[in-house]
C-alpha cells in the first residue's frame, strides 16, 4: 500500500511539470506577437516593447520557462498586465469563493445523486426507477448556464427569504440565499445526475453478486441486505466519480460564476481572457489544475484503500 502511495505521488510529478509547461506555453501559442496583442492593435511600438520587456519575452524560451517556474515555486505567478498587481493577490480571495462553490455543489450532487441512485436501484424496473433515470438524463443533458438563467428568471423576482445564511460563509460572496443556493443548484445538477446513474448501476451490479445471495440465505431482511451488504460495496466505485465531479465543478464554475456575477476564479478567468490579461489566465488555470491533480491523487489513494479487500480477493 505504501508502495502504491509513493508510486502514485511520483506519478504526479511529471503531470505537474506537464501542466506547468502547457500553462506557460499558452502565452507562446498566441498567433502573432503576444506583446502586440496584449497592448492592442495600433499601440505605439514603445508600449509593446515595454510589455515585452516586463514579461521577459526577449529571453530564450527555456530561460523564460525556468524563470516562470522559479517564480511559481516561490508563489509568484507574475503580475497582471492590466492592474499591475501580482497575480497571486488577484487570485487569492477569489480562489476560496470558487473552492467553496465547488464544495457545496459537490455536497449537493453527492447527497441528491446517492439518494436518487439508491432509490432507483432498489426499485429497479419500476415506474419510480424510470422516472428518476429520465430526470437524471435531462440533468446530464442540460447546459448548466441555461439552467442557471432559468433559475434566476423564476426565483430572482420576489423578496430575499433567508438573508442570514450568507453571513455564515467565510468567503462572503453573495448576500442572499438565492446567490448561494441557486449557483450551487446550477453547478451541482449535472454532477448529481452522473452520480445517480453511477450509483444505480453500481448497486445493480452488486445486487447480483454471490455474497448478496449468501446474505439473503442467512435470513436477513431486504433492508439489511440492501443497506448493509450491498450499499457498502456499491459506494466504492462511486468515490472516483465524486472526485472527478469536484474537478468538473471547479471548471464548470466558469459559467456559473459568469451568470451569477460571482467574483470567483472562473469569472476572473473569463474577464482576463476578454481583456487579454494572459498572466491572470495562466495563473488561474494553473491553480485550478494543480488543485484538481491533488484531488485526483487523494481520490485514487482512498479508492485503493477502500478497494484493497476486493482487489486482492
Amino acid at each position, binding site marked *: 500500500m505504501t508502495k502504491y502511495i509513493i508510486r502514485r505521488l511520483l506519478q504526479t510529478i511529471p503531470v505537474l511539470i506537464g501542466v506547468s509547461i502547457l500553462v506557460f506555453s499558452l502565452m507562446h501559442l498566441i498567433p502573432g506577437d503576444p506583446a502586440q496583442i496584449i497592448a492592442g492593435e495600433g499601440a505605439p511600438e514603445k508600449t509593446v516593447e515595454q510589455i515585452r520587456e516586463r514579461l521577459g519575452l526577449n529571453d530564450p524560451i527555456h530561460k523564460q520557462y525556468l524563470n516562470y517556474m522559479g517564480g511559481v515555486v516561490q508563489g509568484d505567478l507574475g503580475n497582471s498586465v492590466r492592474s499591475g498587481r501580482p497575480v497571486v493577490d488577484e487570485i487569492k480571495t477569489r480562489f476560496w469563493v470558487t473552492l467553496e462553490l465547488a464544495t457545496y455543489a459537490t455536497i449537493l450532487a453527492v447527497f441528491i445523486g446517492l439518494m436518487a441512485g439508491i432509490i432507483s436501484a432498489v426499485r429497479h424496473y419500476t415506474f419510480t426507477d424510470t422516472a428518476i433515470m429520465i430526470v437524471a438524463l435531462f440533468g446530464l443533458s442540460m447546459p448548466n448556464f441555461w439552467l442557471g438563467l432559468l433559475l434566476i428568471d423564476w426565483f430572482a423576482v420576489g423578496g430575499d427569504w433567508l438573508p442570514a445564511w450568507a453571513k455564515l460563509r467565510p468567503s462572503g460572496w453573495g448576500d442572499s440565499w438565492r446567490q448561494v443556493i441557486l449557483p450551487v443548484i446550477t453547478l451541482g445538477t449535472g454532477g448529481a445526475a452522473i452520480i445517480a446513474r453511477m450509483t444505480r448501476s453500481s448497486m445493480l451490479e452488486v445486487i*447480483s*453478486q*454471490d*455474497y448478496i*445471495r*449468501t*446474505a*439473503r*440465505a*442467512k*435470513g*436477513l*431482511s431486504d433492508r439489511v441486505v440492501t443497506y448493509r*451488504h450491498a450499499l*457498502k*460495496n456499491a459506494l466504492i466505485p462511486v468515490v472516483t466519480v465524486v472526485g472527478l465531479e469536484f474537478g468538473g465543478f471547479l471548471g464548470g464554475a466558469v459559467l456559473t460564476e459568469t451568470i451569477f456575477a460571482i467574483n470567483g476564479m472562473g469569472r476572473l478567468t473569463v474577464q482576463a481572457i476578454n481583456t487579454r490579461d494572459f498572466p491572470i489566465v495562466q495563473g488561474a488555470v494553473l491553480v485550478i489544475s494543480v488543485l484538481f491533480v491533488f484531488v485526483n491523487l487523494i481520490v485514487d489513494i482512498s479508492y485503493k484503500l477502500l478497494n*484493497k*479487500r*476486493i*482487489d*486482492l*480477493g
Partner: protein
Amino acid sequence: MAETILDVRDLRTSFYTDEGEVKAVDGVSFSVPKGKTIGIVGESGSGKSITSLSILRLLASNGKVVGGEVRFKGDNLLAYSEKKMRGLRGNKISMIFQEPMTSLNPVFTVGQQISETLIEHQGMSKKAAMAKSVDLLKLVGIPSPEKRVKQYPYELSGGMRQRVMIAIALACNPEILIADEPTTALDVTIQAQILGLIRDLQQRMGMSVVLITHDLGVVAETCDYVAVMYAGQVVEYSDVRTLFRKPRHPYTIGLLKSLPRPDADQEKLVPIHGTVPSPLHMPVGCRFNPRCPAATDLCREQLPDLFDDGEGNQVRCWIYNEQWPGEKEVDVFGEERIARR
C-alpha cells in the same frame, strides 16, 4: 425409512426472459429423511441448483415457483409469508454455495458475517455472537480462530472460506443443510476435507443434508438417497445402494456406463449420444427420448410419471409401466432390463 423432514412434490420453477418462459424446474419430487443425506445429481443445466434455491425461495427476481409443494415438517414453505420464510433461512434450513471465493461479503470481517446470523435469529448480543463465532470457526477446523475472526475474506484461501461458509450455515444448529456443489470450485485434496467435515458435522449435529452435485463419486461416498435429475425433472429416486447396483432409468444407466468404475467388470466406457435439450425447446413426451436407445412411440408422445415400485424407489420411465408397448427385455446401453418386475 426414517421420518421425513423435507418433502418436495412436483416442484415447478420458471424464469421469464426475453426469449420466453424457461421451465428450469418442471416436476421435481424427492423427500429428505431426518438425519440422512440426499444427493441431487445431474448435469449442469438440469435444474438442480434452481431446485435448491426454490426450496429456500431465493430465486432471482425473474424466477418464480409456479407449482408444487415444499413441505418442511408438514408445512408448505411456498405458502409462508416472506417474513416467516426469513425466520427459517439460515436458522432451520441453511445453505452453502459453490463459489466460496465470491460468496462472502468482501467488506465485512469473518466474525461479523458469522455473528450476523446469530444476532438475527437468536437475539444474541454482539459480544456473545462474536465469542460463539470463534467456537464455530474452531468447530469447522480453522486454526487460530481468535485471529481469523477479525480477518477479511481476502485474507483466507478458498478452502478456508468454504469452512467459514459452513460455520455461518451451522451457526443456528439447522435441521437441514443444503449444499450446492460445495466442493466443485476447490482443489481435490480440499474437496475431500470439506466433504469429510460436512459428514462429520452432520453426524454430530443430527441434521439432514441435501447435497447437490454433478459428481457420482461424491454421491456414492456421501449420500444415503439419490435423486437423479435430467432436463428439469427427477428421473429416478432411490437409496444409494439400489441406484448403483440396479440403476433403472436409461439415463442413470447411461451415466454410470459412461463413468470409469474400478469395481465393475467394465469393458469400455459407453457415451450417451446427443445433448441435453434446451429448456426453451423441450422434446414432447419423455425428455430423454431423443437420446434413449429404447425409445418407442409412447415415449415420444407421452411424458411418463414417476412410477413407484412400492419400496420407495421411483423411476420416470415407461419401461417399468404396464403400458410399455415394447419387448419384455430391452437393451439399454448394453444392459438388459426386464420390463415389469
